[in-house]
């Protein structure tokens, strides 16, 4: 099932709606990379609230998405990690180093806005 991507101002919002297969995740990565260029987006929020697990492949793909986004001039924020999913990630040994996270969509968008408007703090 493809992940819908919405454009909101200068940001893109990808909202994962159900458990994703590897193929869905790779398609999301490609779609986001393309749409960042099409819309000249400055920020991407990936909402993972509905993801059933965050295994190493999912995290690797999200890190790729953030890296590709950065190279294309857009910041990525991951939002919506549920407590039990976060707990399993920690036990698995997964880290989201170098990736911004927020509690929910609202916080993710606020974070992107603050980064664009706020003083550069080297973060």
């Amino acid at each position: 099932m493809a992940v819908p991507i919405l454009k909101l101002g200068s940001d893109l919002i990808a909202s994962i709606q159900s458990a994703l297969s590897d193929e869905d995740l790779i398609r999301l990565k490609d779609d986001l990379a393309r749409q960042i260029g099409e819309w000249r987006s400055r920020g991407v929020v990936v909402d993972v609230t509905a993801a059933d697990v965050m295994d190493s492949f999912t995290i690797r793909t999200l890190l790729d998405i953030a890296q590709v986004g950065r190279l294309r001039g857009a910041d990525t924020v991951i939002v919506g990690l549920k407590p039990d999913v976060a707990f399993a990630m920690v036990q698995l040994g997964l880290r989201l180093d170098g990736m911004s996270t927020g509690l929910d969509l609202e916080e993710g968008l606020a974070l992107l806005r603050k980064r664009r408007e706020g003083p550069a703090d080297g973060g």
Partner: protein
Amino acid sequence: MGDDDRLPIVSEHDILTARQRGRELAEQIGFTGSDLTVVATAISEIARNIVEYAGRGEMEFELIRERAHRGIVVIARDQGPGIPDVAQALQDGYSTNRSLGLGLPGARRLMDEFEIDSRPGAGTTVTMKKWVQKRSAGVGR
């Protein structure tokens, strides 16, 4: 009671099917909350190893009981190339492909019991178990 379940693991989509089936079975015997996600995550990692390294294999689920304890056993079998150095494959960050190298060691941390039987050329069998915690059932340990 249909305790045994066997699924072929031949494509990426089977990884999703396997972890959903495992979660369903775990829920049936009383796993709750984060433990369900923990079991599903371990299944996902091990099923992906089959697809990536062996190409095809199967995953079997068994629901077990030891005295008052219930648990789930996940057995992943393939006839792939096998793991030449199991100890090395169980180290964090060790991977022969582009992954994060957390599949085997990560799954081992997620489950209560974890065994690998692998020989080069003879395939790999991973057997892992997770027991239902008794904290919410009112039976102290």
